[in-house]
């Protein structure tokens, strides 16, 4: 006549309590020679320092990628990566792409049909025909 404990591990609910930004690293790649990197290089010179200061939780890496189009590569806590090609984009467009990657969760894009996703049980409970009274019994 003992109660035994069943092992369980608590589940994360990011944002309940602390919020941890899911993007942990942004890598900016550019080419010194090609024209498609013009906006990217201007972004690196003028905007990147401010961007990094505004986002202290993101590791910023800049490295050349010769003879290729410029890209931004985001690495996420769920061990996935997202890559965006920013060829021929202007400075502000590159900034938009960087912000897009920063705000992403890293998950695959998926369609969400339900308005609420929750780990909690329904507060109202599930309708049961054995507990309904009167006419409600037949309303399934």
């Amino acid at each position, binding site marked *: 006549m003992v*109660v*035994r404990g069943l*092992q369980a591990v608590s589940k*994360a609910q990011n944002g309940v309590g*602390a919020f*941890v930004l899911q993007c942990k690293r942004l890598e900016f790649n550019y080419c010194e020679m090609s024209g498609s990197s013009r906006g990217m290089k201007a972004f690196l010179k003028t905007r990147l320092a401010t961007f990094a200061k505004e986002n202290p939780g*993101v*590791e910023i890496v800049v490295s*050349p990628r010769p003879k290729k189009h410029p890209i931004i590569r985001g690495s996420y806590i769920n061990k996935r990566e997202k890559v965006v090609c920013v060829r021929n984009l202007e400075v502000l467009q590159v900034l938009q792409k960087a912000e897009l990657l920063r705000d992403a969760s890293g998950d695959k894009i998926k369609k969400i049909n339900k308005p609420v996703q929750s780990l909690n049980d329904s507060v109202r409970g599930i309708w049961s025909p054995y507990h309904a009274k009167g006419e409600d019994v037949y309303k399934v």
Partner: protein
Amino acid sequence: MRRASRSTWDSLAVPRRCVCGNPIRLNDLLSSSFSTSSSSSSSSSSPLSPSVSSSTASRSSSIPTFRPLSSAPSSKSRTSRPFSTTSSLAVIPTLLPTQSAKLAALHGRLNLPNGYPLTTLGRALIDPTAEPEHHLNNDGLSNLGNVLLGYYASEYLMVQYPRLPYEILKTAMDGYIGPKALSAVGTGWGVEAAFAPGQTVDPGLLQFNRVAPGTPLYKVQGGVGFNIPRKRNRMVPNFENNPSVDQQLAAETPEMKAAREAQRPGQDATTLQLAMASFVRAAIAGVYLHSGGLPSTKEFVYAHVLSRKLDIDKLFQFEQPTRELSRLCVREGFQQPIARLEKETGRYSRHAVFIVGVYSGEEKLGEGQGSSLPEAKIKAAISALKGWYLYSPVSGADLPSKTDGNPGLSYTPAVIDVGDIVS
């Protein structure tokens, strides 16, 4: 790190190439006598590749950049790692914790205050298995963090659920602050582990000595696993086809055995899960030491550990719930519980449903649904017992830690229950 164990294994047998092209072995990485030939590999400093660690640069103004003891490199290997830069040889430059973009990003991601130095966070990432020197690893910090976590988790559970049986309390504590849960917290913070500890490792990576492949998990300190030898008549049957640990050890080749023994099993190696958990404990101890003591630690622990989801009502496993309920009623002076059939349908069909309520006099204690009468009765007793055990005071008693920062505050003590039901 998905295939870390496999690649660790590879590196033991096959020489790998350093970043600069020189073939190296794992043992070279581990020893401090790294040759000077690889000095050219400081690749990040070439003009074409300015590896901007700008998050470091932006924060370094507010963070004190002192370096704890880069004292004389003593005879013991790896003593001065990872902080030594004073070596006169042109070895691969080791990054200071204040220069690591990864570490600064982790600091920023956790929203740690500026008073929390990067050096402490860097030290929290060094496991005792990677660095035996006590003042350089996270051993002390981790112990302190463990005490703080135990304090906050236990008071939270005891005040929230004053009637929780001791076994369930232990399990719930384990679910919140056990190694598995804390390791999940650390992974959720985006902490990555280094391939192997060494001087060249970025200070923002978790450093620990991995358990060699083939080591039985029960030999790892504090570790549990599927290949623990099980006794007979336990919950999980010992299948005949399940190879025992002894058979696994007998099947290993001489090379595997040599590699396993070379990696100093036991205390000197640990698993990623245990190392990650001890990092999280150490990081919490750092909050206590550097940013305002107990109140801010409490806030941090609630934000990151206790705000996670754990269903306490799913931790119970009863042996004889009907009997236990009967003993409870005797102890509390209630009338003896009686199970009554409330509704039923399809008794002689394939899918019968019975709803049974368990009553003490006029009071309904619990209700259960089952496909047979005994099942419904047992479920009703379980529901009644859970209703008793999971009682939570509505008005909300105060936690003992409420007065930690301010002893003058008014304090409502929690309910103290008489304890478990014993027959």
